[in-house]
């Protein structure tokens, strides 16, 4: 019985109800929207690391490719002017293709070496985004990104008739419509991955991860399985990037797709429980929630009561890396399988010493 059986649906119901609650605030809701986007990204990474066992340190590249694909297809100064649905589909496919294209030549590398290549690839993508300013606007990022949700619907379609609360937005890409969209996508991704885990492909990944040689001997094709994992993982990352771009209505500074993001996502996956969907979801909501929401709230509190300014250690955000780092170190030491471990992985890490018979 998976541990997420009851609380995951409950969590989704709770999150879906949030905009209707009296405590709901549009700003907070927009922060949550971004959290859902990162959760999709982490779930994509989990396919690569958790299911197939490939340590990928450059997932941010696919997130960036997704965001910039949406940017190119929707910004007014390019002639494409596509709707978000078309752009997001293109972003998913482009990221998946980039994943396959960059991983295929390096598949024969194992472990650390593959990790390094993916790290290098992630950085090269970041530099390319930053430097190709004729297309990507360099460090300014592409904006404004705005598009109709589906072909045939105008970008500025007026939704004020649908407002239940005064805080709700007028355009479809504002809170709470985008909040619902991101939450819905996250839910669909969870369902998709659940089915994928149980499919022939998902079971083949487990076999591959546990023992590549044995898997190959039983007739599985490791190279094809790894490419399938990277295609799914990178595709989900691209989809997350598309949502990110529409949520920000721009791609923001390319710094948002750097190594720190890749590493933070690896942390989310490992913290939550490598290979376990509900765990990864929880890990991301906690870690990114702390990063994006809690530090903000606490910093504001400190500012109100103590005053602003002062060195970095007087702010919670100044302690962020220290806390991340300490959590990682402690988790690896005492609970390397993550908060909600995948059953198989937990057994592997806490193996009972076998007694001679």
């Amino acid at each position: 019985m998976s541990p997420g059986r009851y609380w995951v649906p409950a969590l989704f119901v709770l999150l879906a109800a949030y905009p209707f609650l009296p405590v709901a605030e549009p700003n907070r809701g927009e922060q949550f929207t971004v959290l859902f986007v990162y959760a999709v990204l982490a779930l994509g990474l989990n396919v690569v690391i958790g299911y197939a066992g490939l340590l990928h340190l450059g997932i941010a590249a696919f997130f960036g490719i997704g965001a910039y694909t949406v940017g190119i297809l929707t910004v007014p100064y390019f002639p494409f002017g596509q709707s978000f649905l078309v752009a997001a589909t293109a972003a998913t496919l482009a990221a998946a293709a980039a994943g396959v294209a960059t991983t295929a030549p390096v598949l024969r590398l194992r472990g650390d070496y593959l990790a390094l290549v993916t790290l290098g690839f992630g950085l090269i993508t970041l530099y390319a985004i930053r430097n190709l300013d004729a297309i990507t606007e360099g460090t300014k990022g592409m904006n404004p990104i705005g598009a109709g949700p589906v072909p045939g619907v105008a970008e500025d379609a007026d939704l004020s008739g649908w407002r239940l609360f005064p805080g709700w937005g007028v355009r479809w890409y504002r809170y709470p419509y985008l909040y619902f969209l991101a939450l819905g996508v996250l839910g669909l991704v969870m369902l998709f991955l659940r089915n994928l885990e149980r499919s022939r492909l998902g079971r083949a990944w487990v076999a591959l991860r546990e023992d590549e040689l044995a898997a190959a001997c039983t007739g599985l094709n490791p190279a094809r399985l790894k490419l399938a994992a990277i295609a799914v993982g990178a595709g989900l990352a691209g989809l997350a990037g598309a949502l990110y771009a529409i949520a920000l209505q721009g791609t923001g500074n390319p710094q948002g797709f750097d190594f720190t993001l890749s590493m933070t996502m690896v942390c989310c996956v490992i913290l939550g429980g490598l290979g376990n969907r509900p765990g990864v979801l929880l890990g991301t909501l906690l870690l990114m929630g702390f990063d994006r929401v809690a530090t903000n709230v606490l910093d504001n509190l400190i500012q109100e009561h103590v005053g602003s300014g002062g060195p970095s250690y007087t702010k919670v955000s100044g302690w962020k890396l220290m806390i991340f780092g300490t959590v990682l170190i402690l988790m690896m030491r005492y609970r390397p399988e993550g908060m909600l471990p995948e059953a198989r992985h937990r057994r592997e890490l806490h193996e009972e010493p076998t007694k001679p018979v």
Partner: protein
Amino acid sequence: MPELFAQAEAAGFGQFLVTGLVMGSLYALIALGYTMVYGIIELINFAHGDLFMLGAFLAVTHLAWSGLTDPAFAASAPAYLLAWMVAGGIAAAALFCAALNVAADRVVYRPLRASPKLTAIVSAVGVSFVFVNLGLFWKGPSPVKFPDLIPDTNLLASDGLRLTWKDVMVVGVTAPAMLALTLFVRYTPLGKAMRATAQNPTAARLMGVDVDRVVSATFALGGALAGVAAVVYGLYIKAVDFQMGFQNGLYAFTAAVLGGVGNIPGAVVGGLVIGVVGELSKAYLGAKWSEATVFAILIVILVFRPAGLLGARTREKV
């Protein structure tokens, strides 16, 4: 493109080569710390670059205590006194980094020796985060000026090519340090034990080698070299900041991989190649593509010659 080439011609190919070799010997010094640790416990020590950063910060603090941040004093003090003070700074940074590296190994990595590799790598990332944050608390977010002690005067008579005291200083510190390390690993009993452990930890243990002690010594040596590199880097670049460990660390690790990870002469060759390639790509492709070029080389090397330039071809590493 033509104007880029013209610009590079004016500055001179030789100049980029000199700067590249100087930067390369710095990368090599940092790369040695990576390669030695990887050679023995197969850990990509992500925190090594940030250790280097903390070493530079300690040197800034130490040189400030010695009064060297005061330009008037630095200008008036006799050269031998300055040299002694710089040597003191190097020693302090080396000791500090060695101690910190050994402590990180004791507290964080040693308990994970039997765990899967991923566990240790993630811990190293955690240590790296902690180091970066410590750096931020120590000196704040903006770059810190490093005392400018070495004159920039050109030692060559020619107008085009410049070789300054700074360049000489970098090579004058890094080359003996690398030579000393090579001799140490080759001729001392501890060095022999290190090579044995790198080859086969179990067999080394059976032969009476105290593996834990050897690993600590490796971390100490690698840390000390990072400390030396940090001071030299500070004197050369004249500014240090809390994020400088990331890029320098990655370059150094690329150098280690390029030379064949675990291979000491390989790390030196790799460092020099990375330095030269970085400078030349700055000249011919533009400064903003320099980093991308270095990492592209990393990928190409890993794909076509995963054992590195000087590494032996082994099956299990690939």
